[in-house]
């Protein structure tokens, strides 16, 4: 097995391609007959035997022409990949268990289109694409994420059977791309802990006094906060909720120590992830305290991303 892997390493040169655009040269494109090609060549052998047996001169010619077509198809299949330019793009963070998408740009400098290109990082998630002549195509490679942390893009198999389906040409790409995977928010999330504000107000009580305006309802909002009267005036808009400024004065510091100690690390990170999402959607001021790091209270997308990132990379 080691010999095989060494051989594969040598032959297919499995090493990172870095972040620069990759141009597929002849040393990177491999080609073998496909199942269709095997069927085709066995059909040709049977036809040749038939042509010899019945002494059909034109039968010979037909078989030879088809053999020529097969060889030509081999070159054309190779050509469909040869010279393709692949530029690594970016990827958006996902929660563990979701499918990460890695962006790639494929460029075709040739005046003929390249059709039926198949890309896949893992077997079940294949993307099929085609690039018009002298054009580029942007696509994303799906890759299921399982655990938090950095998810490196494994080697991608870029393959094609176009034009005749008799040969499979393929190439391995390994652009240096990675995607951040946040911990998965727990489905059975414990309620958000009380805001540890100076005044000691409980979340949901002190913050219900001073009405400060409306905002669109989010899934985590309590039905009690829905501005029914305001909504009744215009039912085409999404539901509005009343926003109160009172409670926001208290900040909620979500701390590692608030999670049940009986659970393991991943479960506790999951709970914290869920709380951060809940706190953000409840428009709270929140911070995060983990052993060895802490993020002061804040709110907004950037803040949330920072919190989730530190959860994703916790102890790694």
């Amino acid at each position, binding site marked *: 097995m080691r010999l095989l892997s060494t051989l594969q390493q040598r032959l297919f040169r499995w090493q990172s391609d870095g972040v620069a655009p990759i141009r597929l040269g002849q040393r990177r494109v491999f080609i073998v007959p496909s199942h269709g090609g095997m069927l085709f060549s066995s059909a040709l052998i*049977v036809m040749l035997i038939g042509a010899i*047996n019945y002494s*059909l*001169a034109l039968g010979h010619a*037909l078989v030879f*022409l088809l053999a020529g077509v*097969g060889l030509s198809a081999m070159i054309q299949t190779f050509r469909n990949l040869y*010279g393709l330019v692949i530029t690594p793009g970016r990827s958006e963070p996902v929660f563990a268990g979701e499918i990460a998408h890695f962006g790639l740009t494929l460029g075709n400098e040739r005046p003929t*289109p390249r059709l039926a290109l198949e890309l896949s990082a893992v077997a079940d998630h294949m993307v099929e694409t085609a690039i018009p002549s002298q054009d580029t195509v942007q696509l994303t490679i799906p890759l299921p994420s399982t655990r938090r942390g950095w998810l490196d893009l494994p080697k991608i198999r870029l393959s094609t*059977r176009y034009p005749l389906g008799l040969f499979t040409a393929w190439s391995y790409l390994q652009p240096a791309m990675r995607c951040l995977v946040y911990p998965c928010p727990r489905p059975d999330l414990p309620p958000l802990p009380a805001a540890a504000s100076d005044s000691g107000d409980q979340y949901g009580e002190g913050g219900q006094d001073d009405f400060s305006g409306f905002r669109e309802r989010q899934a985590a909002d309590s039905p009690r906060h829905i501005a029914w009267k305001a909504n009744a005036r215009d039912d085409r808009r999404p539901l509005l909720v009343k926003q109160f400024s009172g409670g926001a004065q208290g900040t909620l510091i979500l701390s590692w120590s608030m999670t049940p100690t009986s659970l393991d690390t991943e479960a506790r990170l999951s709970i914290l992830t869920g709380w951060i999402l809940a706190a953000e959607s409840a428009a709270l001021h929140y911070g995060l305290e983990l052993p060895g790091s802490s993020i002061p209270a804040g709110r907004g997308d950037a803040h949330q991303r920072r919190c989730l990132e530190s959860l994703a990379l916790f102890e790694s």
Partner: protein
Amino acid sequence: MSTPAKQALDHGCPPWLIASALLTIAPHFEHQPLWLSAFSAALLVWATWLWHQDQRLPGRWPMIALVGLACSGIFVEYRTLFGRDAGVGMLVIFMAMKLLELRSRRDANIITILGYFLLLTHYLYSQSIPTGLWLIAALWIVTAAQIRVNGGPLCRIRETLRYAAMICLQGIPFMLVLFVLFPRISGPLWGLPEDAHAGRTGLSDSMTPGSIASLAQSAEIAFRVRFADPLPATAKLYWRGPVLDNFDGRAWRSSAGAIPRETLTFDSAPIRYETTLEANNQRWLLALDAPSTLPPDSSLDGRLTAQGRLPITQRQRVQLASSLDYRLNVEESPKILHQNLALPARFNPQARSLAASWRAETQTPQAIIDKALELFASERFAYTLEPPLLGENSIDEFLFQTRRGFCEHYAAAFVVLMRAAGIPARVVGGYLGGEQNPLDGYWVIRQSDAHAWAEVWLEGRGWRRIDPTAVVAPARVDSGISDALPAGEPLPALVQMRGTWLRNLRHRWEALNNAWNQQILGYDPQRQRELLAKLGLPDSDWRSMATMLGGLGTLLMASMLAWTLYQHPKHDPATRLWHTALRHLARRQVHCAPGETPLALLRRIEKTDPKLAQQLNRVVECYLLTRYGDAGDALNPLRDAVAQLTRWR
């Protein structure tokens, strides 16, 4: 390494596949039973309708029922499921049925491969030029269908067709190299099914009144001859087929039994010639009387008929030589002479009594022969392709009542008269004459040239040819059948054609066909050796051929690959002009760094060489205009600017 093509077909594919199926099946309609053609056509129409209506394809049970129905139909029709016709019928049915279970790309690939296979089966029936052209068109469409299936819905029709044409054209060099160099084996490798060579017309080994007349109504070519030596101007071309010496009262056949070898003496120099025989399922080689040199694997049968070892089941070339003046069996065995005097006792009393009266009157056999020929020469006998039907005493009826007949009537009547008069005589079947194509010099002998004549054995002279037809219709022997028959006889139009331009056209077409037959269809191991010797490779065996094949194939492959690899993407004109400018700068030792924009380059040059920068400024300006400007034509100013830059010293 590859994953099976399980992907579903897109909706645009089936029309391509239906077209491929139609093109590959259609030529078989010509010779298939009507029900089979109708059945497969109905399946095609059904598949098209299902596609058009976007309906679900039939399930498994209906398909199994259809397969069972088709197979039993074929079995009832041909009494077998194998063999040539039944096998082709099955393939046609499968092709049409596969269209009804067209679900994935794999199904589509099977259809195209089946299509390629069906193309081959047409050559079992015809290898003519039109068939070849039709099949090239079919090959093109099948290949295009395969491209369409694999390329998905983004394929455009014209691009797909062009791409398919290109791939087929790229296959042609390989085809030529393989065709010439692939070591040819003269088949068959094993026994062919019984119906492999069915349906050939030609001279048969028996003769009844009217049998040659019906053959003469066919313009089909029986064989072609090319003479290597000049032909004497007065030569009469009697191409000898079977000798029919056994008469049962109605039909003439070759008598069975051992016959001693001929003793031949030749009185003139042999004439060498090459005969290309069309398939006729008979063994005789139709040599000119009398053959002096025979090809290997053939012999004379004791009656001067040259015979091959095996029936001629496909077009075959043989090298022969004949001397037109000869003496055959001056000493003949009494047993053979006795055989050639036999007449069935019950039939033709009138003819026999006539012959007996001649015998009583005259002394020499020659005088009896003359009397018989005089009888035919009399005004009352007519030469016609449509003789009246004859009854039991066919010779009597012909001689004394109808007096209208074709060559077999005259030959048979003459032989009966001779035998009755005590002169050994027999009927010889074959062809007479032929027509030379002025374009390629080949003689073409058609079925309409089929003929029958008589041979008599004379003491001290041996067997001598007597052609009674020559007395009745001299033109038949001198200039051919179309001149011998009166107008209105049912001769095929091709043979009758007397108009010059039509005849000319026919000669051209036949010369082309002959070249096709000789050079392409007749490319056999022998031709291959000859050609390779001409190319400077004498005595090449399969090993040297394989080596050359490998070498040439690799060379072709390498050149195609090189062409593919070094096809640089064509830049647009503006980029090319910009590159010209950059090359000019490089000559001045100013190099554009990778990733450096034109403007950045300009700024850099401004610091080091302001004068050059001044010149370059205009180029950069125009170049950026072509790239980002929306003004109409910025290319010409750029061209001028670059020209100015390169002229500047």
